[in-house]
Each structure stands twice: as C-alpha cells, then as structure tokens.
C-alpha cells in the first residue's frame, strides 16, 4: 500500500539526477533488478545513458505505465500513434534510444525502436540504405558482384530487370583468366562468375575472346567465347560458360 508513490533516484552519465515513481522506473528490468537487490534508498547510476535520452525514456515509460494502469484515458490506437510520434527523431537520437533501451532492458521500447530502424530499411535498394545510414561500402568489386547475383533472383520476383541466369560450374578448378584485350578482368574464385568493370570500351562488341590459363602449363590455352548481356542497370556483365572438360 502506497508503494506506487515510492520514488527512485536515477543519475545519468552526465550527472543529471531524475526522481521518478517506482512503477515507472521498474519498466526497466535493469533498474528493477538493482532496486530489488541493492539499497533502495541510494541513487541508481545509469552510467551509459545521458540525461536527454533518459528523459525521453522516462516519458515513454510513464505513458505506458499510466495507460496500462488506466490512469490516462488513452485507447490502444492512440497509444500506438503516440509511440509512432515518439520515434520520429533524428537518427542519432534513435540509436541512442536503442542502446539505452537495450542497456536498461526495456523490451517494448527496444522492440519499437528496432522496428523503426527495420522500417527504414524496408523497400530500399542497397545504395539507398547506405545513404540513409551513412554506411561505407566495403565490398571488393568481386564480392559485390557475387552478392548482386543473388539479388537478381529478388529482382526477378519483384518484376525487375534481368532474368534468372543459370551458371554452369566447371569441374576443374580454374584459378586464373587472361584476356586478350586491355580491359581488366577480375576472378572471384574458382567456379564463380567472372566480372568485368570499365567495359565502356567493349560496349559495342558482341563477344570477346578469353583465354583460359590451364593448371598444366604445357596444355595449350583454351579459348572460350564470351557472351555479353545487357542487364539494364548500366553494367554490362559478361558470363563465362566454362565447358566441362572431364
């Protein structure tokens, strides 16, 4: 009786002190654990959360506690709206909220903020995602192409450009490929597609000759004809069909 009017003091990383009702503070499992297992009268130090962020979090907790307890007349739809507005913040604040919700173990807030980030990713192409979150593209050319190839399947399904191309893998392990043109060739790995970049010079060619370097240097080099396909994204990709020489 009367326990709901108990106050808990919280000190943040920037030395701000907040005094809140116990029922609000224990929305955080971390605070709840400390309060129940430590000294109830002392100040709980939330050292990884700043004052601004904690203030927002306490607003969230208060709103949800009051709504659940019936202290505030708010319908589920209105609470949902309130939550949606709550996360309309800049990215830095959003990530601070995620980290704080994780640290303080407030499951519903963590879920809400993670869903918000997920919504920022949904429906976007990789370039757009990188721009949104300021992410550096650390792929090598070869690796990026390997991943793009998998994405082609997705494009197929979304009715995008490109059709499903089925690559045949050679049985032998080819490790090097040399062209007779001046363009660069990248070999990703044995048995994977070989991609070319800077192909503007080849834009008008239908096919180029590629010489395959065999394992045994005494074997004559094998010439393969390479077909060129325009997949409509600005890249002209060349697919090698290695004939299986068993």
């Amino acid at each position, binding site marked *: 009786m009367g326990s709901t009017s108990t106050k808990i003091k919280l000190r943040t990383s920037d030395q701000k002190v907040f005094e809140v009702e116990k029922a609000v503070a224990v929305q955080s499992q971390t605070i709840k654990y400390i309060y129940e297992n430590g000294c109830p009268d002392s100040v709980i130090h939330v050292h990884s959360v700043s004052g601004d962020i904690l203030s927002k979090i306490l607003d969230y907790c208060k709103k949800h506690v009051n709504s659940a307890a019936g202290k505030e007349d708010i319908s589920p739809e209105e609470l949902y709206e309130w939550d949606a507005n709550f996360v309309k913040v800049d990215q830095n604040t959003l990530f601070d909220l995620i980290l704080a919700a994780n640290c303080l173990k407030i499951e519903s807030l963590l879920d809400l903020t*993670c869903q918000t980030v997920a919504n920022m*990713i949904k429906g*976007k192409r990789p370039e757009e995602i990188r721009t949104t979150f300021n992410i550096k593209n650390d*792929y090598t050319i070869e690796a990026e192409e390997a991943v793009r190839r*998998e994405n082609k399947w997705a494009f197929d399904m979304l009715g995008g450009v490109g059709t499903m191309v089925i*690559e*045949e893998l050679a049985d032998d392990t080819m490790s090097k490929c040399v062209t007779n043109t001046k363009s660069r060739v990248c070999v990703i790995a*044995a048995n994977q597609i070989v991609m070319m970049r800077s192909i503007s010079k080849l834009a008008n060619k239908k096919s180029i000759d590629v010489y395959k370097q065999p394992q045994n240097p005494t074997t004559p080099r094998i010439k393969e004809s390479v077909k060129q396909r325009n997949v409509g994204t600005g890249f002209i990709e060349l697919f090698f069909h290695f004939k299986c020489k068993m």
Partner: protein
Amino acid sequence: MAKRRKSLADQVPTEIFWSIFNKLSFIDLLQAKAVCSSWNLAAEEFVSKMPWLMLPSKKEVEEGDGAFVNNNGYNGFFNLCENRVYNLKTTPMEFRESCCIGSSNGWLVFLEHKAVPFLFNPFKQIKIHLPSVDYLLGLKKMERNEDGEYELDYLKKNQRFFFKVCGKQQVRECFIQKAILSGKPDCNENFGVVLLCNNREEIAYHQRGYNSWTVIDVSHPPYRDIICHKNHLYALSDNNSIEVWDLGGRDYVGRIVNKSDIVLPFPDKSHTKGNSVRGFGTSKFYLVESCDDLLLIVRFIGDYVDFDGTLLTEWDLLTETCTQPKICPYRTCFFHVYKLDFDELKWVEVESLNDRALFLGGNQSVSVSVQSFPNCETNSIYFTDDCWEKMEEDYNYGGHDTGIYNIKDESFKPIYEFSSDKIQPPPCWIIPSAMLESQLGQCVASLPGCN
C-alpha cells in the same frame, strides 16, 4: 552533444543488429546483404536458415486441364517463415524440362533428358552437372517429347530393350527414387551424391571430382529410404534392417566399407494397424536422423479417402446412381513415429517429438529444431506427396498430398492450397543445411557405425 556517427553497424551491438534484421522480410534481407560486408554476414544468418516449399505455378495448376502436366515446372517458392510465396517471373527451362529427383542440404537434384543429373541451388543460381546415369539405369536413350513425356529405351535385367513413354513421376517411380547429398557443395567442399535407383534395388554413389557412379555393395534390397549423416550413409530396407556405410572409408579393393547391418523387428503398433487397413492403401517408410537418434516414420496413405476421412475401396467409388466414379484422391491418414533403442535393438514408440519438427517427402528426410524458424509447428511432421506410383493415375489429382501432421492430436493442417488437386510437379521441401547445423549435439549416443 550528439556526434555524427560513422555507421549504424559500428555503433549497434550484434544482438540488436539481429533484432532489427529479424523484422525484415526475405527480399529486404537480400537487399541488406548488398549494403556492406558486415550486413552481409548478419543477413545471411537469417536468409540461410529459411525453409521453403517449392511449388509449381498457381496459374498452371489451376487453369490446366490435368492432362498435359509434364510440361509444367516449378515456379514459386513458399517461405515458411513469412507464409508467402515468391514467384519467378518466368519458369526456367531447366525446371520444365527436368525431373526433380531429390532435395538435400538446400540443393535440388534434377534429372535432365539424356540421363544427365545436375545439382541446382535456386538461391545462388548455380548448377553443377553430375556424370550421366545412362549406364547405371540401363538407359540407351532418354528423350523428351513435345508433351513433356520421356521416351526411354532401357535394358531390364540384361534382357532386351524396352521402349517406354512415361511422365516425370514414373521416372521417379522406376528409375531414380531419391537423390541425396553428403556434404555441402556450397563452399567447394568435397561432397558426394547418393542415388536410390532401379526400383529401389540399387544404391549408387558419386564423389565430387570423380567421373562416375559407383554401385554400392548392398545386402538387403529393396530399400525404403536413405539418408546421409556425418559422411555415413544409412539405408532402411524392406526387411527392416538398417545398413550403414562409411562414405569416406574404402576397403583394399577400393569399395565403400559397410560398417554395420542391423536387422530389427517391425514395430508392433504399426504391424497391428497395418493389418487392420490392409487393402485400403500403402505404407511408406522414412528414416530420419534427429539429435543423434535414428527415427523410423511409418506413413499410411489411403488409396481412396473420402472427405470425412473414411477409407474406401475402388468398388465404393461407383454407385448405381452416378454415371462417373466419385473422385476420392489418395491421402495420408496417419503417421507412426519410432526411435531406435540401440541397446535393445528395437523400435520404441515416440509419443512426442518435443522441440523437433520433421520434413518428409521427396527430399532427404530431416529433423529441425522448432526454434529454427518462426511459426514452426511443434511436434509436427511437414510432409509432401511422394507417392510416385499413384501420382499420374488420375487427371484430377496427384501431388496434392501435402500438409502438416500434428503427432499429438493426429490432425492435419494444410500448408499451401491450390484450388485443384492436380499439382504437378509435386511440391518439394528445400531445407538449407544451416538449419540442420543449428541443432546442438546434446545427445551423447552416436549412431552405430560412426565410432
């Protein structure tokens, strides 16, 4: 003041990253993979653990007349996590022209006309050719005609050549019953392919890098099911024995070594039940490795099952008043699940699978943890239609016997519904190997022959 962050990936701990990715759909995960290398790894964790049901095109099934189904191909992939189908814009020619003979470790095995099998990974779009099986199956000729049927010239028991025209499912019934993989072709690792073929009488093995199929010395043909586990091959025979071979071991003449051969009594419960439904249907048997246990699954398929579940015979389909026989497709009626007791060498009934679910059908029989994907039904068997001998007998049905069976209350649930029962090619599970690896080896007992 808040600093300008360099990247989300740097600032957020991995488990939160995963919580975010957990909320993304398959398509969004594929896009996320292309963002940067750390996102690739995180997204791959989710993408590589999704189970799929490969389906023919809804349009072709529902608008087709049931007669010319051999030209149909797989076109859709039903994601069990999201309960939605992803369709390809066009059905690849490979799917139309080839017959699916297996699905194992996330790879599909197809047989092309001209008797050449190949492995296919639909997600990475990679195809790996295997040596021809013409000699193995005694096929002099295998061609596809314009109706999509196969025209075969084959040698039967060293006698004369037969000429046969058959559909894809008959190829599966007579020639290659099941194809499974040992190992994973994904990372250029050493892997092998095992075929149960020639009316279940022969088992053939191909090791990556070699040019041929080796017929394994078998003791108790014909076989009901084959599985691979830790580079060992297990075969369940019609006489209730289990044979085990070590695919990595060779004897002094280079043959694959047989590690053990156990004959087991047929479980009583199924024996009794089998007697009571004799003549009303057929039984199929599956062998599954689950947490280092060996399970036997008995599946009873009624030949003609009425809408209320009554088992009928062919005579019941014709009544005096009807001019046409009643349409009663075959249907699975129940499953019995047993576990092998290694000490007493007998099958013990399993009341509950606890936290496992089984995937059975034309694929390699597998067991997965219920935690391995969201919405997984507990204590259930996910099954597809693998009744090759019945699939082509009627224009109205075939390939339809698919669903989820709950072991506890013996009830059935559909998984994906077409408005027609003639579903060709029949749906097939694709269970990636990453899902199987997530099972923790808490059980200490190991299977015989593996020591």
